[in-house]
């Protein structure tokens, strides 16, 4: 029972990782950039939820509103970051874009610390009064149900956008071959911006869900989940959307199992240990496609 309980906790944590990992993987799939600032988008999203629910109380309506507003705001921030910071570096060496991403991450984290209404100290995130449902000896809280349900809903929505809409088709084409897509009349700049917006919106949703499970918000909160979600993206195969989902769930479960049965201090180490092993055994990840390099 303990095992099933931990797997369930893992599913809930993993669904948050999966949502964040989707943002990493989509951006990487198209512009080949490891967007280190993605974790901080999560922080902004969580703060959005914090302000709205702090002002209007916690009810299903305010939760819905905070999701919509946070996701919208973060999508816009995502586009602004892409246009101002990453777009000028699209043809620059890879490491420059990477350092710019670090710069953006510094800027968002510490900008949050400086802003008077955010500040450096952790704040209590408003949540429902915790209610546990018991099911055959397994406890599940309504926050966990909400987390899993909303993530699955969003992933289904994303899947629909990517596979069944025109812009999704354009995204797939761009990620397959940017130049060819451009020649076929796809507006590359628009697609890249859209990808960043989509990733940021998912990140914002993940932020609210993450803050609901660990009810605290602070400017550096996005760093660790961001890094781990990135591991999840690599685990599933970076650039692959089903891979990011699978990787997120696997990593979440691995982490809660470590916490539950081995040591909570080792949980971070396990995530990165998995990362190294998967990179050595199958560098492209579980669902990644192998690319053969030709001279």
């Amino acid at each position, binding site marked *: 029972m303990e095992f099933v309980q931990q797997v369930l906790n893992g599913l809930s944590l993993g669904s948050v990782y999966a949502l964040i990992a989707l943002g990493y993987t989509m951006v990487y799939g198209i512009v080949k950039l490891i967007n280190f600032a993605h974790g901080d988008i999560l922080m902004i999203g969580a703060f959005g939820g914090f302000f709205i629910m702090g002002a209007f109380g916690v009810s299903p309506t305010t939760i819905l509103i905070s999701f919509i507003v946070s996701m919208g705001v973060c999508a816009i921030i995502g586009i602004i970051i892409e246009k101002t910071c990453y777009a000028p570096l699209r043809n620059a060496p890879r490491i420059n874009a990477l350092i710019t991403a670090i710069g953006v991450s510094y800027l968002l984290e*510490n900008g949050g610390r400086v802003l008077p209404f955010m500040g450096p100290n952790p704040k209590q995130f408003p949540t429902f009064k915790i209610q546990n449902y018991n099911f055959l000896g397994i406890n599940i809280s309504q926050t966990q149900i909400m987390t899993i349900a909303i993530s699955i809903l969003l992933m289904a929505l994303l899947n629909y956008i990517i596979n069944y809409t025109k812009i999704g088709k354009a995204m797939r084409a761009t990620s397959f071959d940017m130049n060819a897509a451009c020649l076929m009349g796809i507006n590359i700049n628009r697609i890249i911006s859209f990808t960043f917006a989509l990733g940021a919106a998912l990140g914002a949703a993940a932020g609210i869900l993450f803050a609901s499970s660990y009810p605290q918000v602070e400017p550096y909160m996005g760093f660790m989940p961001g890094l781990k979600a990135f591991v999840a993206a690599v685990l599933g195969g970076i650039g692959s959307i089903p891979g990011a989902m699978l990787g997120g769930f696997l990593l979440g479960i691995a982490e809660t199992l470590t916490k539950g049965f081995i040591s909570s201090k080792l949980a971070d180490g396990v995530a*990165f240990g998995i990362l190294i092993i998967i990179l050595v055994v199958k560098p492209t990840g579980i669902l990644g496609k192998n690319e053969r390099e030709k001279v």
Partner: protein
Amino acid sequence: MKKNRIFNAVVILGASVVVFVILAALQYIGVIDEYNGQLLTLSGIYIVVALSLNLITGFTGQLALGQAGFMSVGAYTTAIAIMKFHVPMLLAILIGGLVAAVFGIIIGFPTLRLRGDYLAIATLGFGEIIRVLMINLGSLTGGAAGLKGIPAFSETENFVLDAVIKFSWVYVFAVITIVIISNLINSSPGRAIISIREDEIAANSMGINIAYYKIFSFTLSAFLAGVGGGLYGIYMGYLNPTMFGFMPSMNIVVIVVLGGLGSITGTVVASVAFTYIQEWLRVFKDLRLVIFGLALILVMIFWPKGLLGNKELSISGFLRKLFKRENNPERTVSQQNGSREGK
């Protein structure tokens, strides 16, 4: 050729001694105060570590994001050797370097299969694992609280003399690191290493043992980073795992890129500049890191090749120009690649 090399060696040795004497004397008579002396010492440590990363990233072309991990191994090993086993300081620093080098070999093997971003991610993961390891090996490393009371470079009560001794230790190691890297780069193995950066497949087909040189470069780099870490631990007097997390690793990458990938002098200048800029920004208090982030973005957009690109500042070259010596200057690798487009 040979004459040229001797001329270079004499000029470099002379210059480093002159610079040392001037800096140490200025510190001793108080023109450079204690605060600036500390900063110069810290810059020296950054020079050692940043050069070690430049060997992997700038010269071998392998993006690594976990250099602070090697530093951490070196720092803890050195500190434990001194505190628990009473090993002499110099020996302890070298042991720290050697243990870090062992980790370099371990992390070097996966790199044979990984390239580009995947390698970057693997090294990042390695750095984090080391950090978690240091937290969990509580009996040896003091866990999350860290190690306190690492003996200083000197036991003198005289602050001025103490600062000068600190500075001398670090300065000597920095110069040795610079000499090791620059000699390596201008030797035959160094050319092999650079050819891996330029085109791995072409280098392989020209008969260069890529696996050997990659691991060699990782091991040497880890050794130097470990030595830098050892110096850092003694300089700080205490150690804890957060000193070697993701952000410190990134700071080293930032120094190397700002100085120019594949430029030794660039790294040296950038290390000093980075230390001082971080200090100057302290006036802005909380805004410090905001400005730092903004500066990183702007520099990358408007100055993408860093300070020196992959060129070098050269004293002997400058002197030759000054005296208009009739010569057939030995074309250095960096000059040959001067026009190379950024990758």
